[in-house]
């Protein structure tokens, strides 16, 4: 004996809403898992950031040799690797090359402590570096009118 085909049951509005929410939730979870990857950043150790305006004179000295390799910090077995690290804390062989902008040089502080002996790029007073390029002029948008000043 054959049975008459049952007509397709229509979804109610509530069921449609639940269906859409489930699809969106699935997409969200998948996206979150894909995009949430740890990024390599420099950790903040609480040391104040170097000020670009800090007047530091740089003697004409050769770029210092890298510090002896520092062992990588011990990682707890159950936690992920550190997300940020000072360049100086990396072993010499793993330290990335830092290219100084024209007219700048990379130098070290006086190394008074292990913590502060980090490489930094410092600006140079133009009068103290013969090999620095000439300054770039800046355009000034005002009527040229002179004001005297002692030279």
């Amino acid at each position: 004996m054959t049975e008459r085909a049952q007509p397709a049951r229509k979804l109610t509005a509530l069921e449609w809403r639940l269906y859409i929410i489930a699809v969106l939730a699935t997409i969200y979870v998948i996206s979150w898992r894909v995009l949430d990857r740890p990024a390599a950043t420099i950790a903040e150790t609480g040391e104040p950031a170097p000020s670009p305006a800090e007047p530091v004179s740089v003697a004409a000295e050769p770029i210092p040799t890298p510090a002896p390799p520092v062992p990588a910090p011990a990682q707890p077995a159950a936690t992920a690797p550190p997300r940020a690290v000072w360049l100086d804390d990396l072993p010499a062989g793993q330290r990335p090359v830092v290219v100084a902008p024209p007219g700048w040089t990379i130098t070290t502080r006086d190394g008074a402590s292990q913590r502060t002996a980090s490489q930094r790029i410092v600006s140079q007073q133009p009068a103290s570096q013969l090999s620095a390029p000439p300054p770039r002029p800046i355009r000034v948008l005002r009527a040229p009118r002179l004001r005297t000043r002692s030279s």
Partner: protein
Amino acid sequence: MWTFRAMNTDVTVAAPLLDEADEHAFTLATVDLFWTVERKFSRFLPQSELSRINGACSSIQVSAEMIELLHACAGHVQATAGLFDPTIGGALAAAGYDRTFFPGALDRDHVLPAPPLVRFGDLRIDEAARIVRRPPELLLDFGGFLKGRTVDRAAASAPSPSLIDAGGDAMLRGSGPDGSGWLVDVEDPAHPERVVVTLRVCDRAIATSAPNRRRWRIGATIAHHLIDPRTGRPSTSDLAQVTVLAPTAEQADVFAKTVLLLGARDGRRFLAERADLGAVLVDHDGRHDIVGAVEVVDA
């Protein structure tokens, strides 16, 4: 108008009738000139030719450019009866100006001993062989004179009208952007936000000498960069500021310093002997006096 930094000062270049690209090109040429001159003649650059001379223990051969500079200095030393003297480098260093100036950099607690007096005549110059020999206590420093001279060199190829201003030593070529002359505000040395008087300048150079901008503390006293060659110590003139107008920026700089060191009375006498000079003298009470060929803009 363009500005850049050289010789530890702000340099401004303007050629108002040029288009932006041409004005920029002219500015770049001026930058190169200042940079080249500074590398050769700065006493703060250890590898400059001037530093080599100041560090030499015996005779040293110098460049033709250095001989030319020293020859120009000799002329100014004679014209000012020694009040202009580029051999004050040792006195400047002893007064505390032993490194590039910026506010606070030269402050120190102890008073430095007065240096032995040396004069330009103590410098031995063989112009033909280009050999210079100096006594150990003599240090050369060209200071503002070099700024003025470099401004003149840049202005030699400048269009008209144009303005080249290096830390106050300026050449104003032509009659300004609108043909009525360049306007120059003479700053009040005691109150830099105020203007003492406004001048109208055409085809002349201007320079100002005053101890207010480069001052530092030594113990309980205040020192400044205007060394009186007669004493080897910072000047104690009754003038607070002198602005001189002259045919060249080099002359304006030399004579501004000279008049300030001379003081009000002898400074006026000095200016009266030179018809091509004009000046604005400002005393410590803020009073000003116009001397010579100077056009003042009505307030």
